């Protein structure tokens, strides 16, 4: 076996999607990283306020939303794999299932917002809630953009054959959805468990 032989267990190294997509994805990850840092800097000024406010969040809903996004990501992996193997019906169903998970996430988030605001824990209550609404609101905006990316994926999974450019676009859309999942993992830990 030569060093360049490609096997099933050691596929050739390749960039998922367009390389430009990764500039955008890393940029987004760094921007959110800066938000996470800002949140912890603000927390250091009022640790007891943040800790008390954290316990008023719906932890069970936060856990459920994490599981919903993880499951949606698995559906997206399934959709991409099915697209590559030509299983168009399965790919379309998997994308639709992922979009369904996204809608469940939004519904649960709206429930949390309404419930918190109703209990007097709106964005103006203290700095914890202000950051909670800003950070989760920005993430929710990403969920909506991600649903758009998944809708694009759904239009491509029905095609008989995808060229290299379209395949890269579909991979990029899938990676954006995984980014939404990735950012939520840090947000869930910071807001619901750590602060």
């Amino acid at each position: 076996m030569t060093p360049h032989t490609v096997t099933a267990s050691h596929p050739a190294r390749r960039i998922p999607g367009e390389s430009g997509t990764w500039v955008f994805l890393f940029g987004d990850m760094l921007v959110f990283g800066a938000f996470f840092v800002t949140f912890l800097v603000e927390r250091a000024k009022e640790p007891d306020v943040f800790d008390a406010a954290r316990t008023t969040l719906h932890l069970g809903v936060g856990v459920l939303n994490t599981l919903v996004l993880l499951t949606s990501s698995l559906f997206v992996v399934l959709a991409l794999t099915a697209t590559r193997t030509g299983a168009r019906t399965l790919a379309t169903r998997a994308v639709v299932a992922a979009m369904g998970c996204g809608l469940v996430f939004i519904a649960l988030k709206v429930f949390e917002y309404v419930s918190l605001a109703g209990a007097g824990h709106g964005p103006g209550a203290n700095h914890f809630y202000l950051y909670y609404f800003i950070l989760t609101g920005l993430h929710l905006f990403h969920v909506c953009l991600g649903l758009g990316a998944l809708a694009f994926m759904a239009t491509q999974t029905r095609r008989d054959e995808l060229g290299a450019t379209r395949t890269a676009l579909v991979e990029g859309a899938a990676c954006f959805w995984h980014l939404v999942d990735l950012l939520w993992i840090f947000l869930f830990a910071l807001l619901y468990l750590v602060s």
Partner: protein
Amino acid sequence: MTALKLLSNRAGVTWLILVTATIVSWAVGAEHRTGSAVAVLVLAIAAVKVRLVGLDFMELRHAPIPLRAAFELYCVGMWALLSGLYLWL
């Protein structure tokens, strides 16, 4: 059956690990005092989960080394930075 076959690969196992890690972090992190080292553990679990999402869902495990290294650095860097800010600010 096709879906089950497709999910029996690494991504399916990764999903199970991610779900388990979420429940573990919930059990560990739900109740802890301000300034507790438990927060560092919760952040470590989050960083490991993010790494798995990147490697197995975003397919960075077999990406060119610079791209994969940048991602690994992000995971470790975020954990170290956030833990440091939590403990020492």
